[in-house]
C-alpha cells in the first residue's frame, strides 16, 4: 500500500498543481507534495528490512492487484534494495530541483505551474518504473515517463529545444518499441514454458534457467538496446548532449540524475536476472561499449565548448563505469555500480545546477565566455569546485567510494577492461580541473563576465556572446550565490560529504540485493586474484 501511495502522491499532485493560476501558490503546493513524497520515502526506507532481504525475500512492501488477465499482467509493486535507493535519490532530488527552479527564467508564454506539474508527473512515473515488479507494468511506466520529460525539454528548454525534445523522444521511443518486441516475446515464451503467459517478474525469473540460450540472446538484445539508449552507452548516446544542453536546468538534473539511471537499473533488474546466459555471453560486448564510453565520453568532455554539453559528456563517461561494474559480475562491483548511480545523481546533479547558475548570470553557455569568476563570486566558484571534485571522484567525496568499489570488484574477473577504465580517471581529472581553471580562476575575462560587469565586451579570449544580447542585458552584475541558492546547494554538498565518509547505511541496503542478483546470474563471486 505504501508504494501505491508513493506512486499516486506525485501524480495527483501534478494534476492539482497544473491548473493553479496563482504561480506562487502553485509552486508552494508542488514543493509541499514533493516534501510529503520525501517523507513517505523515509518511511519506506525504515520499513524496508535488510535482514529479510538477506534472508532471501526478493521484494518487500509488495502490493498487487490483477490488471489485464488476458495479458497475464498485474498491477504489482514491490521494492528491493536497488529500487529503494533509487526511490530515495529521486525523492531527495525533486524538492531540491524545485527550489532551484523557483525563479527560473522560462521561455515566453510558459507558466511555472506547468513546469512544476511536469516535474511532479516525472517523479510519479519514475516511482512506477522503479517499483514495478511486473514487466508489462514496468514497460508502461518506462514509456509513459517520456511524455512529461518531452514536454519539459520541448516547452521550457533552450533555443534548440524542439530539436532536442524530438530527438530525445524518438530515440527513447525507438528503444522502447524494440524492447516491446522483447516484452511480447517474453510473454509468448512464458506461455510456452509455464503453460500460461505471465509478466510477473518472480515467475519469469524462475523460468530463466530453463530458457535456451538463443532465445535469451534475442530477448536480451531487445531490452539491452532500450536500456543502452536510456543509460546511454556509446554508440546510443547522441541524444543526451542535445537533450541535456537544451533542457532547463531543473529538468536536466532530473534527466541526467535519475531518468538515465532507469537504463542501468534495467540492466540490473531485467537483463541480468531474466537472461543470465545471454548476459554472460554478451558481457564482453557490453564491457567494450562501457570502456569506449568511459574513454570517448571523457575525451569529448575535455573538448567541449558548451558548458551543459560538457556535463552531459561527463555523464556518458560515468555511465561507462556503472555498466562496467554491472557486467563484471561480482557482488562488489554491482554494489559499487548501484552506489555509483546514487552518487552520480548527486554529484552530476550538483554540477548541472552550478553550471546552470553560471549560465544564468552570464547569459552564455560557452566556456570561452567566462574566466576568473572566482574573483566576483567566490561561493559559486567554491560550489563549482566541490561538484567538480566529486565528479572526478576525489577521495572523501561520494563518487570515490563507488568508483573504487566498481574498479576493485571488476578487476578479478575483467582485468583488461578495468585497467583501461582506470585511464578514464585521468581524463576525469583533466576535464574537471581544466574546466574549472578556465572559467573560475585567473583574471576576470571572457565576454559574458565582462559584459555582466558592465565592462563592455572586453578583449578576453571568449568573444562568442552576441554583442547585441550583451548590450541589451546591460550590466547585470555577476552576483555571488543568493540565500536561496545556498540553501539549494548546501544539501547537495552535505550529501556528497556524508556519502563520501559514511556510505555504510546505503551499502547495507544495496548489498543483499546485489548478492541476490549474483545468485540469479548464476555466477560465483571471483575470490581474490585474477580468475581465468
Amino acid at each position, binding site marked *: 500500500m505504501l508504494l501505491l501511495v508513493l506512486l499516486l502522491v506525485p501524480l495527483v499532485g501534478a494534476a492539482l498543481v497544473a491548473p493553479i493560476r496563482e504561480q506562487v501558490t502553485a509552486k508552494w503546493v508542488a514543493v509541499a507534495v514533493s516534501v510529503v513524497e520525501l517523507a513517505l520515502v523515509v518511511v519506506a526506507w525504515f520499513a524496508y528490512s535488510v535482514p529479510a532481504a538477506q534472508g532471501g525475500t526478493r521484494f518487500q512492501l509488495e502490493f498487487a492487484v490483477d490488471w489485464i488477465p488476458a*495479458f497475464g499482467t498485474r498491477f504489482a509493486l514491490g521494492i528491493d534494495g536497488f529500487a529503494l535507493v533509487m526511490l530515495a535519490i529521486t525523492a531527495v532530488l525533486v524538492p531540491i530541483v524545485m527550489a532551484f527552479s523557483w525563479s527560473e527564467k522560462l521561455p515566453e508564454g510558459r507558466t511555472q505551474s506547468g513546469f512544476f506539474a511536469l516535474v511532479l508527473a516525472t517523479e510519479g512515473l519514475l516511482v512506477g518504473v522503479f517499483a514495478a515488479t511486473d514487466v508489462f507494468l514496468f514497460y508502461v511506466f518506462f514509456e509513459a515517463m517520456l511524455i512529461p520529460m518531452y*514536454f519539459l525539454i520541448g516547452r521550457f528548454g533552450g533555443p534548440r529545444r524542439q530539436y532536442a525534445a524530438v530527438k530525445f*523522444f*524518438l530515440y527513447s521511443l525507438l528503444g522502447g518499441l524494440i524492447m*516491446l*518486441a522483447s516484452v511480447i516475446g517474453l510473454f509468448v515464451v512464458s506461455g510456452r514454458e509455464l503453460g500460461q503467459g505471465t509478466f510477473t517478474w518472480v515467475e519469469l525469473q524462475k523460468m530463466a534457467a530453463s530458457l535456451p540460450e538463443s532465445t535469451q540472446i534475442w530477448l536480451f538484445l531487445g531490452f539491452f538496446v532500450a536500456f543502452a539508449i536510456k543509460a546511454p552507452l556509446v554508440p546510443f548516446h547522441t541524444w543526451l548532449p542535445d537533450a541535456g544542453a537544451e533542457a532547463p536546468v531543473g529538468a536536466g538534473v532530473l534527466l541526467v540524475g535519475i531518468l538515465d539511471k532507469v537504463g542501468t537499473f534495467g540492466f540490473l533488474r531485467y537483463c541480468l536476472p531474466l537472461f543470465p546466459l545471454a548476459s554472460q555471453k554478451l558481457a564482453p560486448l557490453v564491457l567494450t561499449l562501457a570502456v569506449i564510453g568511459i574513454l570517448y565520453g571523457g575525451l569529448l568532455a575535455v573538448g567541449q565548448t558548451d558548458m551543459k554539453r560538457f556535463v552531459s559528456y561527463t555523464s556518458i563517461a560515468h555511465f561507462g563505469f556503472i555498466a562496467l561494474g554491472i557486467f563484471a559480475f561480482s557482488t562488489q562491483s554491482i554494489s559499487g555500480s548501484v552506489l555509483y548511480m546514487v552518487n552520480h545523481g548527486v554529484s552530476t546533479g550538483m554540477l548541472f545546477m552550478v553550471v546552470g547558475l553560471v549560465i544564468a548570470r552570464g547569459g552564455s553557455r560557452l566556456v570561452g565566455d567566462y574566466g576568473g569568476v572566482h574573483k566576483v563570486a567566490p561561493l559559486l566558484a567554491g560550489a563549482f569546485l566541490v561538484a567538480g571534485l566529486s565528479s572526478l571522484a576525489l577521495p572523501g567525496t561520494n563518487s570515490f567510494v563507488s568508483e573504487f568499489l566498481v574498479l576493485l570488484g571488476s578487476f578479478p574477473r575483467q582485468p583488461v577492461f578495468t585497467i583501461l577504465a582506470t585511464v578514464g580517471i585521468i581524463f576525469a581529472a583533466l576535464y574537471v580541473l581544466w574546466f574549472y581553471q578556465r572559467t573560475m580562476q585567473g583574471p576576470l575575462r571572457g565576454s559574458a563576465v565582462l559584459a555582466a560587469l558592465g565592462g563592455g565586451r572586453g578583449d578576453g579570449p571568449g568573444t562568442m556572446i552576441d554583442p547585441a544580447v550583451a548590450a541589451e542585458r546591460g550590466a547585470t552584475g555577476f552576483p555571488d550565490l543568493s540565500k536561496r541558492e545556498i540553501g539549494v546547494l548546501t544539501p547537495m554538498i552535505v550529501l556528497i560529504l556524508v556519502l563520501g565518509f559514511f556510505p555504510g547505511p546505503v551499502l547495507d541496503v544495496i548489498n543483499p540485493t546485489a548478492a541476490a542478483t549474483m545468485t540469479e546470474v548464476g555466477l560465483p563471486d571471483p575470490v581474490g586474484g585474477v580468475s581465468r
Partner: protein
Amino acid sequence: MTPVLLAQATGGAITAPPIAYGAIAPVLIVLGGACVAVLVEAFLPRHQRWPVQVALSLVILAAAGVTLGVHAGGSPAALTTLGDALSVDNPTLFLWGTLLLLGLGSILLIADRSVEPGGAFIPSSASRAAAAGGGGESVLPGIEAEDDRDYGEPGSAPTMQTEVFPFALFALGGMMTFVAANDLLTMFIALEVLSLPLYLMCGLARRRRLLSQEAAVKYFLLGAFASAFFLYGLALLYGYAGSVKLSAIAQAAAGSDRSDTLLFGGLALLVVGLLFKGSVGPFHTWTPDVYQGAPTPVTAFMAACTKVAAFGAISRVLFVAFDTTRWEWRGVLWAVAIVSMVIGAVLGLTQTDIKRMIAYSSIAHAGFLLLGSMSITEQGVSGTLFYLLAYGFTTLAVFGVISLVRDADGEASHLSQWAGLAKRSPLLAGVMTFLLLALAGIPLTSGFTAKFAVFAAALDDGMAPLVIVALIASAVAAFFYLRVIVLMYFNEPAPDGPTVTVPGAFTTAAITLGVLVTLLLGIVPSLALGMASGGPFVG
C-alpha cells in the same frame, strides 16, 4: 434441366430457410430504418427533415444496439442463419457492437450544424448550380461552385442536406452484413450496399467542392475496379470449390487434387478487393485523396467504420475459408503488410495536410491489422477485433477534433495552420495530443493495448520478423504524430491562424465518446478483451 427446376418450383422443393430473427435483428433494424429514412426524406417538408432524421437515426441505432445486447447477453452459441448466408458468431456480435457505436459517433458528427453553419453537406453540385440561377448550364458546376460561398436561399437560414442520414444507415447496414457474410455472394452484395452510399457521401462537401467531387469520382472508379476484382475472384473460387460458401471452400482446399491455380488466383483477386476497402498498401492510393476531399464527418465515418468492416471480412475469409492453405498465401500477405506499413509510415512523414497525414497513418495501421488477420488463432482474432474497436474510436475523435479547427475558408487542415494551437485552445490541443499518442501506441492509451494484443498473437504464430518491422514502422510513424504535437505546443501561432470553433453538443458528444473509449481501453481493457476473445469465427 428445365423439368427439374420446374419440379422444384412447383413441387415446393424449395423451402424458405429458417431465419433466426433474434440474432439478425440489429441488421434488419438498421436496413429497415434506412428505408424509413428514405421515406422521411421524400414526404416531410424540408425544414422538418433534419430533426426527424437525426432523431430517427439515433433511435434506429439505439434499437439495434438493444436487440444486439439482448441477443449477446444470453451468451448465445454461434449460429448460421438465412440458409447459411449469415454467420452470427462471437466476432460478428463484437463487430456489430463496434460498428453500431462507431456509427453512433459518426452520425453525431454528421448531424452537427453548429461547427459549419448549416452542416457540412449540400445537395449535389448540379442542383446547386441550377439553384444559383441562370448560367448553370453553361459553366461546369464544380468550377462555379469553387468560389461560391452562398449557403442557401437569401434571407433564409442555411439548410442541410439530410439525405446523408439514410446513406449512412444503408452503409452501416451493409457493413454489418459484410462482416457477418458467410458466403462470398452475400459478401459481395453487402460490399456494394456499403460502398455505393459512401461514394455519394464523399461528394457532398459544402466547401472545397472540386476536391470533394474529385474524391467521390476517384473513390467510385477505383472502388468499382476493386469490386470487379472481388467478383472475378469469387467466380474463380466458385469454379474451384463448386460453392461460394466459405466453409465449402475450406473443405475443398483441404483434401483435393483440384487445380491450385483457380484457388490461389481466386484468393488473390478476392483479397485485392478486400484490401482495397481496408486501404492496405499497395491498394491504398485512393485513401489520402478521399480522406482529404470528403466532408470531415464522412471521413470519420469511412475511416472508422469501413476499416472495421473490411478487416472483419478479411479476417473471416482468411480464418474460415483459407485456414488450411495458410502456408501458401502467407508469404504474399507478409509482403503486403510490410509494404503497407512502410508506405504508411514513410509517406506519412512528407504530408503537409493533416487529413492526408491521418490517411497515411490509417494505411500503416492497416498493415498492423493485417498481422492480426494473418494469425489464424483465437488470439489473432481477438487481437484484431480489439484493435478495430480501439482504432475506430481514436480515429473518430481525431476527425471530430480536425473539424473544429477552422478559418474563413472552412477547415484549416494544413499543418502549418495548427502552429501554436495549444496557446489558443489548450483543451483541444490536449485532447488531440492524447489521441495522437494513442495512434502512436504509447502506453495507457488504447493504441498500446491494441498493438500489444495483435503483436503478441502474431509473434505467437511465428511472425517475429514482421513484428519487428511493425515496431520499427511504429517508431517512424511516431515522428509525424509528434510533429503535430510539436507544432501545437512549441511553435508560435500564426497571426492570421485558424480559430477553434466551440463545438455543438453533437460533436462534443462524439469526441468525448472517442476519447473516453481510447482512455478506458488503455487503462482497463479487460472487459473489451474478454468480449473479443469469446470465440473465433464460425463458418
